[in-house]
């Protein structure tokens, strides 16, 4: 593996990590404040991608598509909250897991019914479609850098809001003790709705951002959902900082592991066996890392204080 190749893979890993962060941020907030496990967070990402694809095709511009997809994803999230999730806040985790699994079943088929089973593709907008020369000879797609930038921007914005505004203070207080916040006269339902809407919109944003890179298809949220779970478990459920660190970690490991694992194994095994074991091991790597982290820190890297 040449240094150039490694550098590009590190950037790819960061870009993937940023997408994971956008999804994990909402999931970890919703969980932290509402103690609500939302399996349907992955399909909200999928719906975001479909909305972006549909609005882009309709308007002919990715930016108009994105601008329309975000509020649509927000409205869609709030609709789900009103129809289903609202009835589950005071239930145990088992009920929450099951009912939100029902939402996944429904939506994975519903997108098939509306947009067909064939994957949709969204072209990268012309302005962002070029490559940029990072140093001599290393070309990197601008669009992927834009994703990294968006992820960083959202991360900073969330950091500022959560840590330095009144709303953020309520969110943090809600994550520590929601009944107490309600008892002090805060409209906790409204706070829940704001947190939930933010989470839904961020998942939608992640879906819309990856739409030009991946094919938009039914079930695309399922795999991402599991990775997001790994991220928030490693980071510590409810912790925004943990989600950011763990998302980048998982993004990097998952991307680099596919290249590094076989080449490391080549030192101890013959090449054919190394590449076989390596490709088998690479997708398992992040779960092994998760097991390792939880072995020593059962509440993740940045546990919430209660």
């Amino acid at each position, binding site marked *: 593996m040449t240094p150039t190749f490694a550098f590009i893979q590190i950037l790819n890993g960061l870009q993937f990590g940023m997408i994971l962060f956008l999804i994990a941020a909402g999931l970890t907030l919703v969980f932290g404040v509402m103690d609500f496990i939302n*399996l349907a967070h992955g399909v909200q990402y999928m719906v975001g991608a479909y909305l972006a694809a549909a609005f882009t095709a309709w308007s002919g511009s990715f930016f108009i598509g994105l601008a329309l997809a975000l509020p649509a994803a927000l409205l869609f999230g709030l609709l789900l909250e009103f129809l289903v999730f609202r*009835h589950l806040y005071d239930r145990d985790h*088992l009920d929450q897991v099951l009912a939100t699994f029902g939402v996944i079943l429904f939506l994975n088929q519903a997108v098939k019914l509306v947009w067909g089973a064939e994957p949709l593709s969204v072209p990268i907008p012309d302005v962002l479609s070029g490559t940029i020369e990072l140093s001599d000879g290393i070309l990197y797609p601008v669009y992927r850098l834009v994703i990294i930038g968006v992820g960083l921007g959202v991360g900073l914005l969330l950091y500022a809001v959560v840590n330095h505004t009144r709303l953020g203070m309520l969110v943090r207080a809600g994550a520590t003790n929601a009944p107490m916040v309600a008892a002090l006269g805060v409209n906790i339902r409204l706070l829940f709705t704001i947190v939930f809407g933010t989470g839904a919109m961020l998942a939608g944003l992640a879906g819309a951002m990856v739409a030009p890179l991946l094919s938009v298809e039914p079930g695309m949220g399922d795999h991402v959902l599991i990775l997001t779970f790994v991220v928030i478990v490693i980071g510590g459920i409810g912790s925004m900082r943990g989600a950011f660190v763990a998302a980048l970690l998982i993004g990097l490991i998952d991307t680099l592991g596919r290249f590094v694992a076989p080449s490391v194994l080549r030192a101890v095994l013959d090449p054919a066996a190394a590449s076989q074991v390596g490709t088998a091991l690479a*997708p398992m790597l992040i779960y092994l890392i998760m097991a390792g982290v*939880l072995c020593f820190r*059962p*509440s993740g890297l940045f546990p919430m204080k209660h």
Partner: protein
Amino acid sequence: MTHRLKPNGRRVVPLLIFALLALVPAATAIGADAFVLSLVTRIMIFGLAAMALDLLLGYGAMISFGHAAYVGIGAYSVGILSSSGIDDVFVQIAVAFAASGLFALVTGAISLRTKGAYFIMITLAFGQMLFFLASSLAAFGGDDGMTLPSRSLVFGAPILKNTVVLYYAAFICLLGFYALCRAIVASRFGRVLRGIRENLVRMEAIGFAPYPYKLAAYVIAGMIASVAGVLLANQAEFVSPAYAGWQRSAELIFMVVLGGVGSLHGAIIGAALFVLLAEYLSRLTEYWPMIFGPLLILVVIFARGGIAGLLKAWR
């Protein structure tokens, strides 16, 4: 005195279930569709896996979201051994027990250090880890899965090829493990487990360390589910990573909740309702999950305690 009334109902319902299951092949002999036999075999197989999960969910309050992984281990024990020429069902079950027990011991030891939502998510992640491992086994079909060369042999005889024999093999497994689970639940071990479920702090205060009890239950439940995998591989004559997928784990949880958590036989009723409903709806429309999903949500929101809960409320 109310708890005196319960055991009666608890004895009658399971008796009815097993009597009914024992008579199904007779019904097909007089002329019912032979398809019924394979359908009910599937019900018993998933019932077995769901019952094992109920041991965790209902008696140990451990929400394992990776239980399909153990079904997958059982199925792949059959697939891998039979493709290397080892067809004896007892060897396959022994390997399935060993592999699932070991996997449950290692992952359980880590998972049980965590609590609540962490436990749900970490069991889910370990399940997915196994799913990806199965998908990467290129020699055994990879993503696509593999067709078995033949069903397992019992003492060298290919009797499982006969669907009625396979039916009763599944029946005996279900009955045997039901009796075992009942005995476990009624034993001292089971009482400690239920005590931990009811109040962890009090159990610790009277001198029980919860961890070894939970881990033992986790390993037992995993090993029982692997038998369901051995049966499933034989019934379908096919193994695939999808057996271990997280959707399957969610379906197993749904079966347990549908039949009523913490009754063991409820899991069998739940499996029956699930398999029949999925079968019926999938004939109705290609988009059957669009009906099934909302139905699941309605059951969770309105039918607390599953079918057993509904019956109780109705009485």
